[in-house]
């Protein structure tokens, strides 16, 4: 009563302000079709990619990372507190590179990436450098010493005469040496030379670590178009179709008719004399060459039945023609114990020893066996899927289809297959890569792939 009296007195004195005439707020009702259509037409249109948007080139790596071969330093030495060291990268991981990488090669614990640019820096290397297979990497802490392990893709300085004109065409890596092929300045070799695999005379008691020496090879019958590194030997293929070799020869892998070391690249004879060779391949101690007529020639180690179709001996030191009746051969790849070829029709044949890709029961064969194309995605629904390229690691195989899919199989050493599992794979298995795989390089325990993005 007292409050009311007070309020009444106040009311008399000053009237409360009239309420704002707005009416009660109502929730939005369902909009009519016309309102919806108008709202839709008035909405802004976003553009995420233009008509001339180009597909981007990317590099993906996976496998064993503690050697630094993957080029991601945070896997080995985490830079942030929450990151943990990652010993194995089981699935493809994107590696950021400054330039478009045109060629990559995986050695035994190290990787080389090269771009065919005319800039000063054309080749980058990462991984083991105990034999200077990545050149001299000057240490920041001590300017007189070099790094033994390179964790990030680091430029390799090449002694080029015309650094802003020469282009690097291809790189190749062996166990402890590497070869870099240029278009006009021959082949550069670096790394271990205890067997003459770098193409220069063997120096007794030479220390290969922290060495600045990069040797240049120019004396061939014509320009070199492909370089291939075996475990401790090197092969060079020239434009005229000849093959040169140097390095360790105890298994006959130099193919020069003897089992000694060769320290100067020498031309091979035997069954490939006079034959126009269009592709050479090697990774372990066995070598294969493909001629332009679709024949395949082999030499080197045959302990695992790689060349048992022509000879019983376990070392073949002269190139021999392998008379397989499987069709015209387009590409061949050699692994440590198994070999793989691709024919013109797109069929894949394997032979040798190990996990060959036809289930756990097939462990060795001297005669090539075909892998059914249905394992690569071929079916009545997709009849035009073909295998386009084949590659070999030490005990793994990789196949690229024309749709840009990558299939791997073989021994899954430290996660190098990239399937995400640690088990061996007995038949071709797809690797999920976010892009179209253009090329892949296989190593002992890691792989590098060059990928184009989808759009």
């Amino acid at each position, binding site marked *: 009563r007292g409050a009311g009296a007070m309020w009444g007195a106040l009311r008399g004195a000053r009237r409360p302000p009239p309420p704002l005439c707005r009416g009660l707020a109502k929730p939005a009702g369902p909009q009519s079709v016309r309102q919806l259509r108008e709202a839709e037409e008035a909405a802004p249109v976003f*553009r995420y990619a233009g*008509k001339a948007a180009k597909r981007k080139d990317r590099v993906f790596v996976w496998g064993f990372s503690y050697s630094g071969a993957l080029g991601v330093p945070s896997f080995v030495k985490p830079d942030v507190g929450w990151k943990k060291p990652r010993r194995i990268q089981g699935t493809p991981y994107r590696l950021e590179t400054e330039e478009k990488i045109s060629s990559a090669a995986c050695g035994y614990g190290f990787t080389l990436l090269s771009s065919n640019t005319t800039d000063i820096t054309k080749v980058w290397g990462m991984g083991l450098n105990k034999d200077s297979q990545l050149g001299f990497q000057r240490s920041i802490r001590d300017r007189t010493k070099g790094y033994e392990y390179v964790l990030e893709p680091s430029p390799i300085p090449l002694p080029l005469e015309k650094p802003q004109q020469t282009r690097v065409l291809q790189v190749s890596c062996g166990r402890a040496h590497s070869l870099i092929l240029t278009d006009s300045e021959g082949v550069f070799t670096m790394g271990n030379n205890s067997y003459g695999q770098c193409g220069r005379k063997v120096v007794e008691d030479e220390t290969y670590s922290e060495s600045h020496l990069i040797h240049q090879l120019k004396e061939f019958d014509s320009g070199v178009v492909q370089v291939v590194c075996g475990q401790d030997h090197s092969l060079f293929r020239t434009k005229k179709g000849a093959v040169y070799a140097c390095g360790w020869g105890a298994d006959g892998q130099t193919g020069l008719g003897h089992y000694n070391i060769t320290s100067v690249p020498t031309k091979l004879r035997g069954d490939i004399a006079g034959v126009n060779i269009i592709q050479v391949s090697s990774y372990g101690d066995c070598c294969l060459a493909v001629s332009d007529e679709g024949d395949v020639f082999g030499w080197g180690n045959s302990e695992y039945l790689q060349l048992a179709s022509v000879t019983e001996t376990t070392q073949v030191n002269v190139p021999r023609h392998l008379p397989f009746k499987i069709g015209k051969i387009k590409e061949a790849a050699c692994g440590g114990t198994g070999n793989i070829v691709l024919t013109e029709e797109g069929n894949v044949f394997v032979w040798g020893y190990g996990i060959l890709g036809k*289930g756990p029961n097939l462990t060795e064969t001297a005669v090539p066996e075909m892998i*059914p194309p249905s394992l690569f*995605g071929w*079916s009545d629904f997709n009849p035009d899927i073909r295998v386009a390229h084949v590659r070999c690691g030490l005990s793994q195989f990789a196949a690229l289809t024309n749709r*840009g*899919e990558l299939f791997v199989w073989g021994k899954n050493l430290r996660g190098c297959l990239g399937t995400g599992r640690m088990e061996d794979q007995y038949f071709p298995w797809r690797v*999920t890569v976010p892009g179209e795989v253009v090329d892949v390089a296989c190593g002992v325990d890691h792989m590098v792939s060059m990928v184009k993005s989808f759009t």
Partner: protein
Amino acid sequence: LNAAAGRAPRQHVRFLPGPAGDGGGATGLVAARVPVLAEHPLVRGPRFRRLKIGAGHRLDVKASGVFVLGIGHGNKLLTDLYNCHLTKVYTVGGLFGKATDDFSDTGKLVEKTTFDHITREKLERILAVIQGSNHKALLMYSNIDMKTQEAYELAVKGLIRPMGKSPPIITAIRCLQFALPEFQLEIHCLHETQQYLRKIVHEIGLELKSSAACTQVRRIRDGVFTLEDALLRTHWNLQSIQNAISDCQLKVKTELEKTLG
């Protein structure tokens, strides 16, 4: 069904009062066959009051196409068909340039984008990758040990399939028509829902750096049943249903025997 003539009512012998054999008005019992009164249609009522009808794989309201039904004892076959895990084929129509909240073109608009940079080649690349990753999922969810020789043999023949529960898997996908902004896909899938297919259309749009909404989902094949076996609205009568059942009986039986052994 109820209008069809039922079987004739049973007859039984009753002794009814009637004129006796010898003349005159004396009433005696005469044996006569008369139908049982309990089986008179007015007493019994209609023969069929309820029918057990079961549905096969679900088809939601915005989709159309083949929808398998089982009647009566056929419902047992429905569970067997479900356990066969056969693929279903859909034609899915999409529209570039729009992103909606429920992935279909009748939903609320979320974003509009340009789509003039999309070509058929880019779309086919995306479809190849979808097919590849789903093929991998097919092998993984089939719960077969990959290290055995029989896993290799099945993989060669293409017979590896998940025979239990699994997330939706697309076994094959291809582009039937492509006319910007519309496109049509044919999708073969397992354990899917129609909303999942609309989500795939939306994700294809995102992958192509644009956006897409689904306009049409039509199932054209469900295991062994195709569009030719399906009955149109005008054929929903007893005779056509009976014909359809007898036509499909053999197909269903062979398929069940082949898969479930």
